[in-house]
């Protein structure tokens, strides 16, 4: 086997040194009745060309499109060439959690930069070293809020990503916490009067996503005022952080969490992605996950190390703030490089391009006689009413190598026939116009 660096003779020498007659003897501690007596039914080992062939064939089965207008928590933004070149440095990707800071300063400094960028982007004071993804960042945020104020009820907008809400329900099912869902208004924003009705002294947190699942920008200052008036925390989820290139950061929130895939992580059929979690400084000791802090070495030079580990499972075991062990370091590195390349002006410009593309597409839909389902302001996604559930239209799109939007009926029965579209800077005007033309015919 080509990954194994030993000759048969070296194996013999080693066995001799140990004093074993055979490799079999090394496994004598495994009782014979539970030993495997036949080879695994997995076939022979394959060469690189064969492996490539297998995966190329699978990629080809996926049907190659020229344009895809899906968003819904996974966004296609251009990843600069430098990004993949840099994350392919194997000192980054073949290292592990930086337990030994003296030989892990590369990872540690990059995470410190990532934490800083997430704070700058969200307007929060502190950010952790990342979580699995946006969907798991939601329950981690909710559990964090409950640790902070000890309350047992959470109100959450129905316009928060449906799969995130499903994951939240799974996490909370044995935590004795009540989840209340707040409907959306005609604007697509959280229904404020319904929120007001549901608030009370037992509410731990109000959870809202902005831009929400429908692409609509929420009124964060108003929601924060409602939450804070009842002594609850406001958790703002963000699934499309490129929006923060132009959108005002949710500075009134207590916790801002979400998915940072859109900043440089490949779509990769849903993962690996990277969850982020940022918060007000006073909540730092309730935070889940790794944190990197600045310090000095024995000579007084600046350096970085993992810190505040007394919150974590390897120290606190059953009393830890979360069961999470590591972060998503390599994906967080992608985010750090992506945001460094685009930087202050680039992220803003990219956000304006997204906004402009989406505006253009919406205008075309209107001209084609279609109606936007919601009246609120949107960033790069919006919902068009009454144009879904038409297999013939889908086929026609595919003939033009276009994957259209997401049908909302399976997530929201009341929105059956509505379709969620996403237009990033990668969307070409010609394909957008073609999409709208086919969809509105």
């Amino acid at each position: 086997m080509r990954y194994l660096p030993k000759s048969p003779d070296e194996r013999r020498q080693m066995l001799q040194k140990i004093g074993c007659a055979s490799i079999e003897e090394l496994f004598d501690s495994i009782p014979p009745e539970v030993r495997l007596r036949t080879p695994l039914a997995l076939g022979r080992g394959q060469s690189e060309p064969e492996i490539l062939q297998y995966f190329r064939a699978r990629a080809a089965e996926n049907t190659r499109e020229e344009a895809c207008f899906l968003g819904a928590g996974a966004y296609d933004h251009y990843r600069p060439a430098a990004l993949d070149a840099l994350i392919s440095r194997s000192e980054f990707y073949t290292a592990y959690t930086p337990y030994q800071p003296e030989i892990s300063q590369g990872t540690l400094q990059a995470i410190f930069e990532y934490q800083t960028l997430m704070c700058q982007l969200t307007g929060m004071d502190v950010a952790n070293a990342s979580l699995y993804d946006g969907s798991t960042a939601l329950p981690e945020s909710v559990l964090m809020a409950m640790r902070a104020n000890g309350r047992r009820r959470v109100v959450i907008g129905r316009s928060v990503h449906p799969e995130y809400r499903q994951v939240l329900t799974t996490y909370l099912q044995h935590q004795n916490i009540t989840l209340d869902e707040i409907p959306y208004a005609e604007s697509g924003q959280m229904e404020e009067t319904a929120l007001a009705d549901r608030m009370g002294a037992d509410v731990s947190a109000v959870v809202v996503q902005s831009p929400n699942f429908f692409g609509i920008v929420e009124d964060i200052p108003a929601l924060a005022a409602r939450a804070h008036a009842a002594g609850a925390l406001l958790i703002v989820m963000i699934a499309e952080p490129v929006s923060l290139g132009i959108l005002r950061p949710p500075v009134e929130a207590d916790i801002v969490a979400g998915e940072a895939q859109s900043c440089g992580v490949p779509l990769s059929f849903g993962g690996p992605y990277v969850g982020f979690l940022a918060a007000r400084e006073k909540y730092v000791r309730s935070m889940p996950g790794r944190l990197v802090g600045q310090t000095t070495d024995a000579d007084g030079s600046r350096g970085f190390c993992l810190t505040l580990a007394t919150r974590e499972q390897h120290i606190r075991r059953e009393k830890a703030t979360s069961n999470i062990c590591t972060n998503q370091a390599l994906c967080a590195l992608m985010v750090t490089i992506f945001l460094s390349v685009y930087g202050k002006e680039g992220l803003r410009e990219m956000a304006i391009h997204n906004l402009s593309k989406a505006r253009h597409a919406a205008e075309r839909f209107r001209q084609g006689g279609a109606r936007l389902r919601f009246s609120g302001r949107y960033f790069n996604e919006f919902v068009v009413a009454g144009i879904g559930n038409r297999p013939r239209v889908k086929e026609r799109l595919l003939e033009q190598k276009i994957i259209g939007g997401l049908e909302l009926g399976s997530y929201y029965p009341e929105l059956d026939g509505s379709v969620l579209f996403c237009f990033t800077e990668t969307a070409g005007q010609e394909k957008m116009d073609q999409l709208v033309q086919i969809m509105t015919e």
Partner: protein
Amino acid sequence: MSDQDIRKAARHVSQNEGLIFELSSPGKAAYQLPPLDVPMVDPAEALGPENVRAELEGFPEVSEIEVVRHFTRLSTWNYGVDTGAYLLGSCTMKYNPKINEVVARLEGLANAHPCRPESLAQGCLRILRDLSKALVEITGMDAVTVQPAAGAHGEMTGLLLVRAYQQAQGNPRQKVLIPDSAHGTNPASATLVGYQTVSVASNSEGTVDLAQLDRLMDSEVAALMLTNPNTLGIFERQITAIGEIMHSRGGLIYMDGANLNALVGVSRPGDFGVDVLHLNLHKTFSTPHGGGGPGAGPVAVKRILEPFLPVPLLRENADGSLALDFDRPQTIGRVRAFVGNFGVLVRALAYILANGAEGLRQSTEDAVLNSVYLRQLLEGAYELPYRAPTLHECVFSDKKQARHGVHTGDIAKRLIDYGFHPYTVSFPLIVSGALMIEPTESESKQELDLLADALLAIAREAEQEPETVLGAPHSTRLRRLDEVQAARRPVLRWKPAGRE
């Protein structure tokens, strides 16, 4: 001991580098967007002035060469598996094959949107199907979910399955038994699922104390969480008896698969009584650790737990096409958005294909051979608190060196000077001053001999010149970091000068 005596490593110049923010100055840029092919929109007009931010305060403005040098320089401050032996016990820092990286980046896989219609994602689904089948075969279980994002996430998923199963039997039960040698994630995951944890002491052999297990196992215990081989590298010889105690009283066995790399092709959890286990694809199946993630933690189960698996679950239609099944009334729900860490799953399948049955078994054999060989070379110089036979890893203690004031953490720091990434320090908790060493199958005899020489030299240094060990590392760009200061006055982000 002078630097000349260190055979594996030599000092070399490394570049200094500030934070990316410190390289910034207004007007520099590393990007260029294509011309906008639609009319440009004014953000304040489109979004309302109240929703628009003035600027991204503090964000870097740097050129491409600066970004490239910045992260390249940072990378040279790291030590990876590609640099040399990476001895972290239980972390299984084995070689990450390069073909895995190539196939995960294939256009058509890397660019596939997770919401693609199933009919246009058959290639992705076939990869999931082929991997699932291989994992079922390797573990001897009946079904698998590939949704969990990491080992700890798999633990939570597995315990939710246990709870759902017990609930369906009429009582979810209150407790989960966890040996005192277990990873900290085990009790943390059990708490998340609403279980009380009860610690099971290890016996003098380092394995589960059967008599104590027998006393603790009652009708309120839902499951035993067992790591096998355990964190001492010892196989639970009494596994059949453990299974009888648990199963005869309605309990289940959850196996933490962190150490499955000691068993692949040799013994299958499904054949020794395990009901549910998670696998760490980033350990046993070679996907890169990435500096601390991403990983993947699929969960394999016996038939009795299958109805409760998370949605969506992969389903094969009568015509051979694949679909995602959401209609599973007894499911515990979804544990993650979309299907899972697909890119990690791709790499794991590439590894399984490259090895085949024979290669996987030989990898297991070599992993154990390496570990036992190293144990043989180090015994005598380091105290071995548990003498039972070990498989893929072994745990020494610093008892002999502690007499000279040198502890496991110091030995680890000195090992850095010798050119190695240290072992896991001070874990498992049942060994005072633990050195937990896992060489994996990826190390050659030459690398192991150098490693043994280094650890033997450090043992001598501990006796003869302990200050050399206590002051280590001497060769790194930074000396020991002040972790107390970092925690006492946390600085968790950069701020511009004058605003710290």
